[in-house]
């Protein structure tokens, strides 16, 4: 393990990761690697229709006992999902179909056999009679009064419709510049390379249900399973092993999880289900699928005034527990002013049920859509005014002097320098040079375009923010248990889940900083409800803020006790004691940390009178500002587009970003680069289209394009560091930011390439077909060639 920046300052060191070795030698333990004797595999019978009555399910007589329908796994309670709002309509989602199926891929029956191949054979023999019903496919048409209904008892297909009215939106009607666009981010999957998975069995010795689950947060899943299965929580143990990517897609309780856990209570052997790629693309939590019908308004001098219009979120057939998809609409509305001084908003946001797979969170949640809509509109206003889009951004962005700034929709943008981020990106991408290159033209006939997008990334938000979002479980804190063993080495248990973020390294750096020891002496553990403290898991760019804060706080409490023991043993005052490099230093002597640890654990006779033994501390942590701290940045991208084939190549990609204090800059850069790769996927490649009958048209990697090494450039990352004022160490979360801005920046760049003919690029992914059609359409409109 080597360190940049010396051995003492662990905060800010690009420490190489402690978690690498097991993966480099193939010793990782992912869900499908967990071996439990006698395990049998599950294959699900899934709906092949988007909307249908389940008339009959015939089990093959020879294996009837191996086929489970809903009645066979009862009792299973359905928990109400979605925000805790009476206006949000209930969409009861059974683990196996209850007489109705509402999307292609919905689970109808579970077949259990010794191997997956045999289970799939059995699934093929289960005959399901479906009576097809009209499918609801288009999100806007779904809101028309004559649309078929996803749920018969609902008055329309809206889970919930909400309005945001801020400032004085009546002014917008008479604005000098009004630009109307319809914008769309299409549906995609989260595509962790490891699919979902669950393995469950009853442990007779411990008398508990053990559920191995590929999840981003085991404690909350245990809560769900306990309530659904009617088991007390101490009889349910959820273990999350190594997780092969999550990105939000593994942070909801899913029907397969519930069905497998319920079957484990009925059979005498362990059962498991490992998601295959087709199932992942069909039925894992889907994402994005935002449609915006918006008018942005501005003064002639370029002052942005506000936005009005409608937002449609295609949330699919059911709300996933706990919170459904409502935060997509609420966050999209509230983030739609971005970093700009826009004070007037009138937005109607509809979270709509359709006959598609249910929507879940995905890296960036709502903000890739809001940023795409806003930043595309800003570019369109600039075009309308004949201005350089960059200059319009700079003119309207909140300045450092104006921070903290309360946006029109009530977000408190905290610290930083947005103008500096814009300018840095402009300088590094060299805007004037690109403008010159465009004038010169390309020898190969391709068009060059440059696009900018600014984003903010709310992170470390706690109780108040999640109360606003009406969450059923409020992830308002994280916890850490820091334990020093008799030899002075440390075990830390946390409630967040590491699935690539490097917590085993960064949380050890924080504890090492507080305890004055080497990170190599510290092990960070997580992912087992039997041993970890309560916590909510890893999502919402929260782990380094919350779990980092909790580890810091618990470590400091431990350090304080160590000092008191040290003062006692060195016969001095505790104020005179300091801890450094594993030693306790007093004015006239020193003592090894290991000796203190041994005394605290194994020689209580050496402790001060009345002091409790052990060196162990549990702390919870929430930042003092529970509305969150905002990381932010500017993405700038240069593309070359073939106007005839519509193929887009990224020539250069620059990010200037500020996530406050970086605990480990190497890991920060890795998150930025990785997030941008996913954002490039959203922008250019990834899409699950549905046909008019509600059949998904991308169910393999042959149809669903994921960016590979040739499509993802090495991003040039620039850091601005403005420590947050309300978090430990001044950190801000940054896991999602990379994925937020690429659709906006890349679409702006493609539009810039064709600004001379006014082609529109308002829908992702910007596939070759979409781009070439847009160019063709614009050429025709101008009466040009072809």
């Amino acid at each position, binding site marked *: 393990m*080597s360190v940049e920046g010396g051995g003492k300052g662990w905060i800010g060191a690009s420490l*190489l*990761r402690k*978690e*690498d*070795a*097991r*993966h*480099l*030698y*193939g*010793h*990782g*333990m*992912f869900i*499908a*690697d967990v*071996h439990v004797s006698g395990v049998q595999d599950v294959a699900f019978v899934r709906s092949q229709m988007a909307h249908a009555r389940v008339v009959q399910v015939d089990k093959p007589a020879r294996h009837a006992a191996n086929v489970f329908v809903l009645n066979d796994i009862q009792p299973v309670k359905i928990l109400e999902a979605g925000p805790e709002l009476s206006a949000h309509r209930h969409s009861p989602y059974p683990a196996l179909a209850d007489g109705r199926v509402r999307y292609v891929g919905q689970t109808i029956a579970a077949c259990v056999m010794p*191997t997956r*191949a045999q289970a799939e054979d059995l699934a093929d023999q289960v005959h399901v009679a479906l009576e097809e019903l009209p499918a609801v496919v288009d999100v806007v048409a779904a809101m028309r009064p004559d649309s078929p209904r996803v749920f018969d008892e609902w008055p329309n297909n809206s889970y919930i419709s909400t309005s945001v009215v801020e400032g004085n939106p009546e002014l917008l009607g008479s604005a000098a510049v009004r630009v109307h666009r319809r914008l769309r981010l299409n549906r995609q999957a989260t*595509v*962790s*390379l*490891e*699919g979902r998975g669950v393995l469950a069995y009853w442990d007779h010795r411990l008398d508990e249900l053990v559920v191995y689950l590929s999840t981003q947060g085991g404690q909350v899943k245990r809560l769900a399973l306990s309530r659904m299965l009617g088991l007390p929580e101490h009889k349910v143990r959820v273990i999350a092993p*190594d*997780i*092969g*990517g999550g*990105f939000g897609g593994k942070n909801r309780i899913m029907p397969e999880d519930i069905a497998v856990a319920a079957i484990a209570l009925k059979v005498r052997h362990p059962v498991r289900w490992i998601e*295959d*790629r087709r199932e992942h693309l069909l039925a894992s939590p889907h994402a994005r699928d935002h449609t915006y019908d918006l008018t942005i308004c501005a003064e002639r001098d370029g002052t942005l005034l506000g936005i009005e219009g409608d937002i449609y979120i295609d949330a699919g057939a059911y709300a996933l527990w706990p919170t459904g998809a409502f935060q997509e609409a609420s966050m999209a509305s509230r983030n739609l002013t971005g970093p700009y001084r826009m004070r007037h908003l009138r937005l109607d946001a509809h979270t709509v049920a359709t006959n598609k797979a249910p929507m879940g969170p995905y890296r960036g949640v709502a903000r890739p859509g809001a940023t795409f809509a806003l930043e595309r509109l800003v570019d369109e206003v600039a075009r309308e005014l004949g201005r350089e889009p960059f200059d319009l951004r700079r003119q309207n962005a909140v300045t450092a002097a104006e921070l903290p700034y309360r946006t029109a929709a009530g977000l408190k943008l905290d610290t930083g320098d947005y103008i500096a981020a814009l300018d840095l990106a402009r300088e590094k991408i060299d805007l004037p040079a690109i403008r010159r290159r465009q004038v010169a033209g390309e020898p190969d006939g391709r068009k060059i375009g440059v696009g900018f997008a600014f984003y903010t990334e709310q992170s470390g938000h706690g109780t108040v923010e999640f109360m606003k979002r009406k969450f059923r479980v409020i992830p308002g804190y994280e916890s850490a248990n820091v334990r020093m063993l008799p030899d002075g080495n440390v075990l830390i248990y946390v409630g967040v889940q590491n*699935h*690539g*973020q*490097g917590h085993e390294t960064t949380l050890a750096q924080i504890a090492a900083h507080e305890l004055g020891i080497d990170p190599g002496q510290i092990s960070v553990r997580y992912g087992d409800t039997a041993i970890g403290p309560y916590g909510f898991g890893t999502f919402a760019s929260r782990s380094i803020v919350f779990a980092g804060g909790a580890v810091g706080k618990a470590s400091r409490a431990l350090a304080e006790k160590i000092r008191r023991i040290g003062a006692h043993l060195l016969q001095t005052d505790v104020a005179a004691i300091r801890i450094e490099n594993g030693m306790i230093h007093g004015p006239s002597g020193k003592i090894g940390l290991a000796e203190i640890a041994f005394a605290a654990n194994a020689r209580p006779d050496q402790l001060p009178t009345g002091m409790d033994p052990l060196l162990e501390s549990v702390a919870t942590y929430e930042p003092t500002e529970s509305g969150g701290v905002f990381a932010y940045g500017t993405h700038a991208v240069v593309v070359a587009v073939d106007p005839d084939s519509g193929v887009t190549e990224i020539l250069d990609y620059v990010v200037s970003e500020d996530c406050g204090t970086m605990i480990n800059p*190497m*890991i920060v*850069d*890795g998150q930025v*680069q*990785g*997030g*941008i*790769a*996913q954002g490039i996927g959203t922008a250019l490649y990834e899409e699950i289209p549905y046909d008019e009958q509600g059949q998904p048209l991308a169910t*393999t*990697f*042959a149809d669903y394009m*994921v960016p*590979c*090494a*040739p499509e*993802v*450039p*090495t*991003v040039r990352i620039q850091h601005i560091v403005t420590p947050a004022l309300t978090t430990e160490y001044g950190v801000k979360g940054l896991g999602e930011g*990379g994925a937020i801005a690429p659709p906006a920046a890349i679409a702006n760049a493609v539009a810039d390439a064709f600004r001379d003919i006014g082609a529109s690029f308002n829908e992702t992914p910007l596939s070759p077909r979409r781009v070439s059609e847009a160019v063709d359409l614009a050429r025709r409109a101008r009466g040009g060639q072809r």
Partner: protein
Amino acid sequence: MKSLTVELNGATVRYEVEPRQTLADFLREQCRLTATHIGCEHGACGACTVVVNGKATRSCLRLAIMCNGQSVETLEGFPNDKIMEVLRRHFHESHALQCGFCTPGMLIMARDILLRLAEPDAQTVRQQLSGQICRCTGYANIVDAIVSAGKALRSQRAALP
């Protein structure tokens, strides 16, 4: 069931397999060699890449029985391989892995690239890697790791008498 004999990571082993069982399932479920990961089962993601008769091969697209009499090497089979050791070091130092799920397939393919191409440049490595999906890293650090491993191996060879 059919009888299958393979040289697996240097040792001759014999199993009874179903003719339809893929090499990936055989390695994972029968042999319990779980470094070989399954990411798509249709040959698009490269997570299951192993070495068959010296060539990088997608184990999800090959039936186990097709490997009868052949040699198969998985990541578990390279504990002391010189190229793999250099690659592991550079993957670690370049932060070329996050969740680690694609890593075994990446390492097998990277070794294959370095065996075929001495000291490839970044663009070559990107093209050569185009059949391997990584969802976490955005590839840049993986490309760096392979390029720098290629350089390190070249200078090691140059240093030999």
